[in-house]
C-alpha cells in the first residue's frame, strides 16, 4: 500500500494495560503520562484487564504499541495468553513492552514471547519514550 503523503498527522498510538488482579496502577499511569508528554496518544484501560480485553482493545484502537504493567508476579502466566489473544485476532504488527516487578531470570522467556523491552522500577521514563520512538513499527 502506498505511503500516505501527509503522514505528519499520524500519531503513535499506545495501549497501556494492566492485566491480572493487582490494583496498584501508579507505574502504569506514570508511563502513560510520560508517553503523553512525549507526544503519543495513549489509551489507558484501567486495572484488572483480562487477556481477551487487552487484545480486543489493541485491535479496536489500532494501536502501534502495547505496554503491559504487572506487579503480581503472574506475568509468565498472563503474558503468553495475551500474546495468544493478539495472534488470534491477527494483531501481529504491534511493538510489545512490559514493566513492573519482573525478575531478571524471566527476561529471556519474555523476549522469546516478543517483548522487546522490560522496564523495571528505577527506569528513567525518558528511556521508555525513546524506546517507543526508536522501535515502533511503521
Amino acid at each position: 500500500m502506498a505511503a500516505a503523503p501527509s503522514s505528519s498527522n499520524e500519531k503513535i498510538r499506545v495501549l497501556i494495560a494492566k492485566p491480572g488482579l493487582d490494583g496498584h496502577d501508579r507505574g502504569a499511569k506514570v508511563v502513560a503520562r510520560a508517553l503523553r508528554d512525549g507526544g503519543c496518544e495513549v489509551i489507558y484501560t484501567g486495572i484488572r484487564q483480562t487477556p481477551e480485553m487487552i487484545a480486543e482493545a489493541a485491535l479496536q484502537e489500532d494501536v502501534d504499541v502495547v505496554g503491559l504493567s504487572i506487579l503480581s508476579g503472574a506475568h509468565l502466566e498472563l503474558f503468553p495468553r495475551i500474546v495468544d489473544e493478539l495472534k488470534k485476532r491477527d494483531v501481529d504488527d504491534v511493538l510489545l513492552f512490559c514493566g513492573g516487578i519482573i525478575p531478571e531470570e524471566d527476561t529471556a522467556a519474555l523476549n522469546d514471547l516478543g517483548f522487546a523491552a522490560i522496564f523495571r522500577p528505577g527506569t528513567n521514563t525518558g528511556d521508555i519514550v525513546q524506546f517507543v520512538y526508536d522501535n515502533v513499527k511503521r
Partner: protein
Amino acid sequence: MSELIDRFLNGERRALARVITRVEAESEEGRELVRALYSRTEAAHTVGITGSAGSGKSTLTGGLAKELRARGKTVGIIAVDPSSPFTKGAILGDRIRMQDLALDPGVYVRSMAGRGALGGLAPAINDVVAVVAAFGFDYVLIETVGAGQDEVEIAGTALTTVLVNNPGTGDDIQAMKAGILEIADVLVVNKADLPGADTLASQLRALLSLSPAGERRPPILKTIAAKDEGMVELADAVDEHRQFLRESGGERKRRETNARHQLLATAQAILLEKIRQRTEGGNLESLVARIADRELDPHTAAEELIATLNLG
C-alpha cells in the same frame, strides 16, 4: 486499498480499525476510503453525548450502549478526549468506563484525540463517524471532549444530541446563557442521587417553558449512570427524538444542515491549505511583515492572499 475495503465490507473489525486510522490521518488514502464508503453511511442513527468534564458522559455512553444492546441493536462508539496543546500527546481514558462492553461482538469502541480542534470534537470526526456508520452499526454514539458553554460542534455531526448536566454546577442563569443548552435534543440530569438534582431538573423545565410555543421541548431525564439507572428511559428518549425527526421531516433537514456545515468547513480547510502551499515563504511572509509593521490591516492582507488563488 481495495483489499482493505473488501475486508471492511466483510465485517472484519480489524479492517474497520485500520480504516479509521487512515481516515484520522487525513491522508489522501483516508479520503479515498471515505469516498468509497460514504454512500453506505445513511442507515445508522448518530447520537452525540456532550457535557462538562466529569459529568458522566463516558459512563452514560456505556450505559446507553448496554441498553441498546439489550434491545438487539449494534453500537459503534467514538469517544473523544483532548490532546495536549503543547506536546500534541493525549491520554484517552474513556474505555475505563465502558468495561462491560469490552468483549461484546456487537460493540466497537474507538478512542480519538481532539488533535487541537475547537468545539469539543476532532478534525476528522465527521469522516470517522461516516466510516463507523458505513460498517453497519445501528447506532453510532459520539462522546465529546468535556464541553462547557459553547462547544456546539456536536450538533453539526449527530442527529440527536444528549446534553449531560449535574446538580450543583450553577444556578438557572447559567442555564439561561446562550450556547450549549440550545443544541440539546435530550437533557439528562446525571448523578441524580446528589443533592440538588430535583432543583436542577425543575430549573431546566422552567427554562424550557420560555421556549417559543410550538417548538419541541427536549425531555428532561434523571439518571445515575454509574448504577445503570435511567438507561431504559434514555434509550427511549433517543428513539423518540429519532421518530420525531422522521415524522416532522426534520431528519432530512438536519442531514442537510449538517451536510452544509461539513461542506463549508471542509472547503475552508482545503482553501486554507491551498493558500498556504502557494504563498508560504513568499507572499505570505511579506504580508505578515506588512501587518506587523502596521502598513496593512489583516482584512486587506487576507483579500490580497486570496487573490493569489485567482478565484475571480
